[in-house]
């Protein structure tokens, strides 16, 4: 049995990718765009962060690149690239389902398949293996053990209240929510729904890319399909948290705690049962047995501007 502080720290660190991705889901869906692509955006963020870190590692005296003599800046450039790649994926989703007005769910599924193909294709080209990358320069850990987290984790903890503040206490956040509830009404007040949705998708993509980077930075390596459904679980957390950043983060903490419990009690409880708890909870929430979740009114409906 580990020390309680270690369990709390472990849960928090497991929650980071979920929290970032579910914030991404909240931002996108509050603006009225379904974002099933979170899974794929995370995967691309994870890969790009690793590959760019690798590319930025300085070449050592013996002519080989290695994590050991890496400059401290390489992982930071990688992180920025991962976030940017996520934002670009978000914009691609926007082109398909805002500009062309194609089905948002199908676009998301296609982007997930695309992300799997692109990351494996590029991983083979860069690292000569489709299954995993080389180990790259690590990010520093900030804080006192066991609460020593990557900077991404600290950023994620700050982003939860920040995104809440943005959505509920700023004009831009009000506009974002307005186009998700009633785009025509927002349009008549001079808020351009499609432009707002594009910005929301770029922001959402950046957050999901950061969430993916959190996964690969944690182990300083990219592994094939390393998101393993976390994007979908983040969507579930977003629904369980009723499309609210604080609620979504709380649901993510619960999911992470159940994941941590599986590791802790492997031999005492049925691991498969514990594993399916988050999914069963989401089904119960969606079915209205545990509180009623209300989706944004215009969610999934493309908006055709009259001008």
């Amino acid at each position, binding site marked *: 049995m580990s020390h309680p502080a270690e369990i709390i720290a472990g849960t928090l660190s497991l929650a980071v990718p979920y929290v970032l991705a579910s914030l991404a889901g909240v931002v996108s869906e509050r603006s009225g765009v*379904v974002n*099933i692509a979170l899974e794929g955006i995370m995967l691309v963020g994870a890969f790009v962060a690793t590959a760019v870190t690798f590319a930025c590692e300085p070449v050592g005296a013996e002519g080989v690149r290695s994590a050991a003599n890496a400059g401290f800046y390489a992982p930071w450039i990688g992180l920025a690239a991962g976030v940017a790649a996520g934002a670009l994926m978000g914009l691609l989703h926007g082109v398909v389902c805002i500009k062309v007005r194609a089905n948002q769910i*199908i676009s998301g599924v*296609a*982007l997930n398949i*695309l992300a799997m193909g692109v990351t494996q294709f590029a991983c083979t080209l860069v690292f000569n293996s489709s299954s995993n990358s080389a180990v790259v320069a690590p990010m520093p850990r900030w804080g006192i053990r066991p609460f020593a987290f990557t900077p991404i984790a600290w950023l994620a903890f700050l982003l939860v209240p920040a995104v809440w503040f943005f959505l509920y206490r700023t004009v831009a956040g009000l506009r974002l929510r307005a186009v998700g509830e009633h785009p025509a009404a927002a349009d008549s007040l001079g808020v351009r729904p499609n432009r707002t949705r594009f910005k929301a998708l770029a922001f959402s993509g950046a957050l999901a890319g950061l969430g993916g980077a959190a996964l690969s930075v944690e182990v300083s390596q990219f592994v094939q399909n390393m998101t393993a459904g976390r994007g979908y679980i983040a969507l*579930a957390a977003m629904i369980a948290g009723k499309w609210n950043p604080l609620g979504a983060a709380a649901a993510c903490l619960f999911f992470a705690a159940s994941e941590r419990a599986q590791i802790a009690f492997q031999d005492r409880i049925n691991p498969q049962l514990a594993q*399916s708890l988050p*999914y069963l909870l989401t089904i119960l929430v969606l079915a209205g047995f545990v509180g009623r979740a209300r989706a944004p009114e215009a969610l999934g409906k493309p908006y055709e501007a009259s001008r």
Partner: protein
Amino acid sequence: MIRFLKDALVRSIAPALALGAAALLGLLIVAVVGHNPFAVVRNLLSAATQAHGLRDDIAYVLLYATPLIFTGLSVAVAFRAGLFNIGGMGQIMVGSILCGWAGWKLAALPAILAIPACIALAALGGALWGAIAGALKAWRGSHEVIITIMLNFCAIAVTDSLANGTWKAKEGMTPQLPAIGQSARLPRLGARAADAPPPEAGDPPLMGIGLFPKHVQVNASLFLALLAAAGMHVFLFRTVRGYELRAVGHNPEAARAAGISVKRVTITAMAISGALAGLAATDLVMGTKYNYRQDDAMSYARAAFIGIAVSLMGQNHPGGIILAALLFGAMERMGLLLNDVPKDIVLILQAAVILFVICGNELFSRMLARKAATT
């Protein structure tokens, strides 16, 4: 007949353009990563047509297309009812484990009983998993997309606990069920070569169709898939229930006003969709692997997701779905023959096809609407 052909032609414009665009994208990617696209295509063609190559290629394409016909039909029947079944993976897993269980437990039965029982359980397992999502949608208004995604994860947990627990095969470390009995195995289409050694007891049964080589696992489930496509065509376009399903898909409010029970249609559509996905087990368990393996989860997921692409490419039409499944089967085969660039380019192109088809359909229908408005 002329109208049917014209209709088919109009429907195939967007998929054909999407295919062309994806092919161009593929050549572009090949060029960007530093290869001569024409040399890559030439190498691919020579790999495909070397000695016995073409005969093998056809058999492999049919092998890869078989599960895609099932998953494509599964997605399409839900689409026709206005539902998006993204839970093919879970439905295949539940269908497969029940199918594998039946084949293992009923090994003593003769083939004429064992094979129908296994097929029925594969369909039943998938139907059950699909119907849960349908029922929650009909009675509680829960969105089927998130529910089916969650049911995918639940299916992994349930099958994992069975394949690791009470149903686990004694031999081997990996979670899997014992092999299904000889009588539950679907025969391969191929014929034995004239100079081959005499068959042994463990050899798979063969149908002896000379066109197919023995070593390719393409099997009788292909006929079942074609039968399912024909059945779906009759159901959708020649029966009242099928008409009701399509009516709900077009306009649920109008269907309700016309006295159709939208709830009943939603549940049955999801059950049929799940059953079709579950039937993919006939190929995966009864035709190729001969047992249920938990480690195949990724290939189940892939069959389910590519099924979405197949359904879109086939424009939700049974005939189109067969053609689209053959096309995607050919893409899989192409990936295995590629030597110059990583084979994952196939996944990129399959995703690109989906994006191009949905954009093409949308832009094309808008163009038609504009034309209709101006004339």
